[in-house]
C-alpha cells in the first residue's frame, strides 16, 4: 500500500480542565478515499479534525500529512489542507466573492479569478458573488464555507458535518459535489450524524466514541462482517417443530408457532438468498405461509449496536 496521506498515531487530547477528548487515536487515511468519521455527540470528532488543522494543540501523539510532520512542517502541510468547520463562522458582512478570494490568498495561492469563478459556479454561488454573506440562507452560507475551503485547491479536505441543517435536495447536491472532488483526486474526511450519508458516500468508515476509535474498516467489509438480514415469515398454521430441511437455517419459532424468524447472512446479500432458499424448503416441506417481512440491517444498525444506546 502506498504511503498514507494522513497518519495519526497515539493522538491524545486532554482539554484544560482535564477532560480527555481523544484517547490514543491511531488512524491512517489513504490518498483519494472518502473517509467518514461517525460518532455520537461529544465523541471527539471535531477535536480530532481540529488537531489536524491546527485549531487544537495535541497533548501527545504525532500527526503526519503528506509525509510532513505537522508539529514542524505545518506550513507546507497546511497549505494543502482545507477545512469546513461545523459552525457557520465567517465574516457575515463580507461579500461572497471577496471572502473566497481572501481564503485563496491566505493559503498562499496566487490570485486566480477564473478558478474562483469555477468554484463559485460549482456550488451555485456565482449569482450571489456580490451579496453579503449574512443575506444568504443557511444552506448557502454553508456552501460559502465550502467554497472558501476549496479556494486553495486542497489535496485533503475536512468536512465537519457538511450537511447539518441542510435540506434533502441540498444534501444530495452536496453528495454530488463530494463525488466530484473524489474524481479530482481530493481526499475527503467527513463527519456526519446521518449514517445513510456515510453509507452512500464513504469508502471507509471509522467509529469513534469517548475519544477512542472503536473500529475502522472499509464500509463494505464492515457491512459484510456485521450486517444481518432479518426475516419474519408469517405461517398459515401454527408450527411446533422445525422439519429437518428447515432447521439447517438460522431460524427460530416465535409468536406461539405462528411466525418463523430468520436472523443471519451478512451485509452482502447472502441473507436474502438464504431467505429465498428457506421459503423453497418450507414449500417443499408443505408448510404454508401468508406473509414475509424482510429487512437488511443498515450501517445505522451496526453503528447503534457498536456505540450502544446509552452513549
Amino acid at each position: 500500500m502506498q504511503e498514507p496521506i494522513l497518519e495519526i498515531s497515539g493522538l491524545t487530547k486532554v482539554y484544560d480542565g482535564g477532560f480527555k477528548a481523544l484517547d490514543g487515536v491511531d488512524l491512517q487515511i489513504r490518498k483519494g478515499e472518502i473517509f467518514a468519521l461517525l460518532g455520537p455527540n461529544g465523541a471527539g470528532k471535531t477535536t480530532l479534525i481540529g488537531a489536524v488543522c491546527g485549531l487544537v494543540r495535541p497533548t501527545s501523539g504525532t500527526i503526519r500529512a503528506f509525509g510532513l510532520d505537522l508539529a514542524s512542517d505545518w506550513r507546507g502541510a497546511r497549505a494543502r489542507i482545507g477545512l469546513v468547520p461545523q459552525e457557520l463562522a465567517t465574516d457575515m458582512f463580507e461579500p461572497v466573492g471577496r471572502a473566497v478570494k481572501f481564503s485563496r490568498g491566505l493559503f498562499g495561492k496566487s490570485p486566480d479569478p477564473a478558478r474562483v469563478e469555477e468554484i463559485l459556479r460549482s456550488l451555485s454561488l456565482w449569482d450571489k458573488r456580490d451579496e453579503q454573506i449574512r443575506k444568504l440562507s443557511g444552506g448557502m452560507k454553508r456552501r460559502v464555507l465550502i467554497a472558501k475551503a476549496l479556494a486553495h485547491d486542497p489535496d485533503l479536505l475536512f468536512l465537519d458535518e457538511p450537511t447539518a441543517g441542510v435540506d434533502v435536495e441540498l444534501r444530495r447536491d452536496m453528495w454530488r459535489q463530494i463525488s466530484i472532488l473524489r474524481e479530482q483526486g481530493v481526499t475527503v474526511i467527513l463527519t456526519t450524524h446521518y449514517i445513510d450519508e456515510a453509507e452512500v458516500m464513504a469508502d471507509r468508515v471509522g467509529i469513534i466514541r469517548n475519544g477512542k476509535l472503536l473500529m475502522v474498516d472499509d464500509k463494505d467489509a464492515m457491512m459484510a462482517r456485521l450486517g444481518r438480514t432479518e426475516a419474519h415469515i408469517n405461517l398459515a398454521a401454527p408450527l411446533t417443530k422445525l422439519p429437518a430441511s428447515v432447521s439447517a437455517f438460522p431460524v427460530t419459532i416465535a409468536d406461539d408457532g405462528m411466525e418463523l424468524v430468520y436472523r443471519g447472512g451478512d451485509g452482502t446479500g447472502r441473507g436474502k438468498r438464504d431467505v429465498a432458499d428457506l421459503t423453497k424448503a418450507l414449500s417443499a416441506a408443505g408448510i404454508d405461509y401468508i406473509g414475509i417481512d424482510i429487512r437488511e440491517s443498515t450501517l445505522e444498525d451496526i453503528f447503534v449496536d457498536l456505540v450502544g444506546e446509552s452513549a
Partner: protein
Amino acid sequence: MTGFNLRGAYAIYVRELMRAMRTAFQSILAPVLTTSLYFIVFGAAIGGRMQAVDGVNYAAFIVPGLLLLTLLSESTSNASFGIYMPRFTGTIYELLSAPVGVAETLLGFVGAAATKSLILAAIILLTATFFVDYRIEHPILAIGYIMLVASAFSLFGFILGIWADNFEKLGIFPMLILMPLTFLGGTFYSIDMLPEPWSTIALFNPIVYLVNGLRWTFYGSSDVNIWVSFGLTISFLAICIAIIGFIFRTGYRLRT
C-alpha cells in the same frame, strides 16, 4: 511551499483595510470632529490666554500631544478589535488552519491597524492646519516616530485582543490605564508647568516620553532626553513582539 507566506500576509492586510472601509465615513469624520473641538476649546478659547511654551504658541504646542492621544487609542482599539472579533465569532478558525505564522499575522493585522493610524494622523494634521500655524522641524523623523508609535500600540492592541475574553476586558485597559496616563502625560502641557512633586512623578509615566519624543520632532524641544523617548518606544515595541511570539508558540488563547 515553506518559508514566509507573503500572499497570506497581504490577504489579511487587504481584508482588514476593506473592513475599515465599511465604516470609512465614521472613521474619518470622528477624528476631524474631535480634533476641531480640541482646537476650539484649547486653542482658541483657552490658548489665547496661555503664554507660549518653550517659545511655541500654545495652540501649536498641543498639536503633537493631540495627535498622540488619538494615535494611541485608535491603534490600540483597531488592532484589539481586529483580532478579538474573529476569536469572538469563531472566524479565527480559518486563520489558525492557514499556513500563516506569527510574522504573517502581525504584518497583516498590525500592519493594517498601523496603516489606519497613519491615515488618521494625516487627517488630524490636516485638520489642525485650519486652526493653527505649526511647523514640523524634523518631518522625516516625525513620520518615522508616528509609524513607530502606531506599530507599537497596534502590537499592544493585538495582545490585548488576544488576552481579553470578554468585551469588558477589551475596553478596560484603554479606558482605565491608557487614557489617564495619556491625559496626565503632558499632552496639553509641559511637565515643567507642574509643581513638585508632580513633575518628578510625571517622569514615571511612559506616555510623557512618547509625547515629548513626538513634540521634539515637531519643535525641537522636549522636557526629557529624547534618546530615552526613542529607546523606550523601541523597547516597548520589542517587548510586544516578544509577547506575541510567545503567544504563537504556545497557542495561548488562540488554540484550545
